[in-house]
């Protein structure tokens, strides 16, 4: 039987075929586009040098810490912000202002304040995702149907219980979806930060390889980042299904 995921396999195969044709067919110079085998060999080299694991780990570590910090602060704040006029009035102007500042423009400042170590990378990721996430989660909690809250009130729930048993579970599918979207941005901001200034990490590796015209290595880096992205997305979908088994919408189509 024909299935939708057969289409996915098909497009992947076509892209790979074009890549093979362009490189093994000698249509594009290896300086611009290395062959699949060259990239694989490069990955093996990187592994032997001990850089594959180290750089990947450094990048993953920074993304995870930055993103988790943003998530654990932005989610509660967003949930309250979406339901309280007072909190909204206090924080909205500031959040709206910062949200429209491109994070890239803040990178020089973060270097000035924090140097070029892990802390600075984490800060860039945090700044890039926190404000967006707060507003996205606020939207989610603001759209909890009023009748759910009224129903829980007639069953005797106080404000704390309304949050715990109604607003949070009702928002959970939206929270998970927004976290999944934002972690993609976190990767982007990390690579930007590593390209600008770093001593390790996948972005740093890509930049240095460009200086030495090591195109193989650039592609190896891109491949790893791409695969990590696919893996994170998959993990998030699984996690969403696990956390909100009752929601048909959350975690994408299946």
């Amino acid at each position, binding site marked *: 039987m024909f299935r939708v995921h057969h289409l996915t396999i098909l497009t992947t195969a076509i892209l790979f075929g074009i890549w093979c044709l362009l490189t093994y067919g000698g249509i594009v110079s290896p300086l611009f586009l290395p062959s699949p085998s060259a990239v694989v060999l490069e990955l093996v080299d990187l592994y032997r040098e001990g850089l594959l694991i180290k750089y990947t780990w450094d990048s993953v570590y920074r993304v995870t810490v930055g993103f988790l910090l943003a998530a654990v602060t932005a989610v509660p704040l967003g949930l309250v912000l979406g339901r309280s006029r007072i909190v909204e009035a206090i924080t909205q102007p500031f959040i709206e202002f910062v949200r429209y500042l491109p994070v890239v423009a803040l990178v020089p400042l973060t270097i000035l304040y924090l140097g070029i170590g892990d802390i600075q990378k984490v800060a860039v990721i945090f700044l890039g995702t926190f404000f967006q996430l707060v507003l996205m989660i606020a939207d989610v909690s603001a759209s909890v*149907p009023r*009748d*759910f809250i*009224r*129903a*829980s*009130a*007639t*069953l*005797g*729930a106080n404000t704390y*219980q309304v949050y715990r*048993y*109604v607003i949070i*579970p*009702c928002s*959970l599918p939206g929270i998970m979806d927004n976290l999944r979207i934002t972690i993609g941005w976190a990767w982007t901001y990390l690579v930007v930060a590593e390209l600008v200034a770093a001593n390790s990490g996948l972005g740093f590796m890509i930049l240095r390889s460009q200086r030495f015209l090591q195109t193989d290595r650039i592609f190896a880096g891109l491949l790893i980042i791409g695969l990590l992205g696919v893996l994170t997305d998959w993990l998030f979908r699984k996690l969403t299904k696990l956390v*909100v088994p*009752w*929601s*048909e919408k959350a975690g994408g189509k299946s």
Partner: protein
Amino acid sequence: MSKLEIRNVSKTFETRYGKVEALKDVSLQIAPNEFAVIVGPSGCGKSTILNIVAGLEKTTSGTVLMDGKEITGPGADRGMVFQSYTLFPWYTVRKNVEFGLLIRGVPADERRRIAEHYIEMVGLKGFEEIYPSGLSGGMKQRVAIARALANNPEVLLMDEPFGALDAQTRVVMQELLLEIWEQAQTTILFITHDIDEAVFLADTVYVMSRRPGTIKARISVNLPRPRNHKIYETPEFISLKSQIVDLLWEESVQAATETQIQETNGGMFR
């Protein structure tokens, strides 16, 4: 003493487009274990009355008393079944029914026992672990009734709970509700715009006028209990029904005439 007393309640909503007078000097008294039904034309303020009694909405003037004490906010002593489906989709049928007990800190095994009792009462044994998305409209409202009852409220408020159901399911649910009410011994304030439903269920029917809503008539229904749908054909039922139809008819005739006058006066250019 009456269980529930609505005393000279008026309600005006302030909206962006001006004031909407929803209720005007509404008074009624409901005795303990009475089944009271309010019927009225659409938009006359029926839901507003119920929301006020539930404590979800404040009055503009007037008070609501329960056992002689003034109501100030929502509370577990007044259970509510809404017109829209308000089961929590993130909880199974069992957890939905347990909700009020969970809120009160009832221990898990007792919660389970009580929930099972009410789930059985509404005829949904075997559906405990299903999520609401897997239930039909009628089943959802049964669960909503079980959820309200499990909390053991003194007064049950029901806002057109069967409004969205098909005619057959509706009749089944009405008979079920009467059975439950006779078992559970609670006071019920029920809203509908279905006259058959009103007469079938009620001890007392209150007929409301158009907006701003006032109580236009109070009709005692002294049909024998227990009732089943065969009662629909009895002369007593039919005469009560036509009495209410006449009252509501006056309202809609007035409404129609008024809109006509407005339209003639307004014309095409205002």
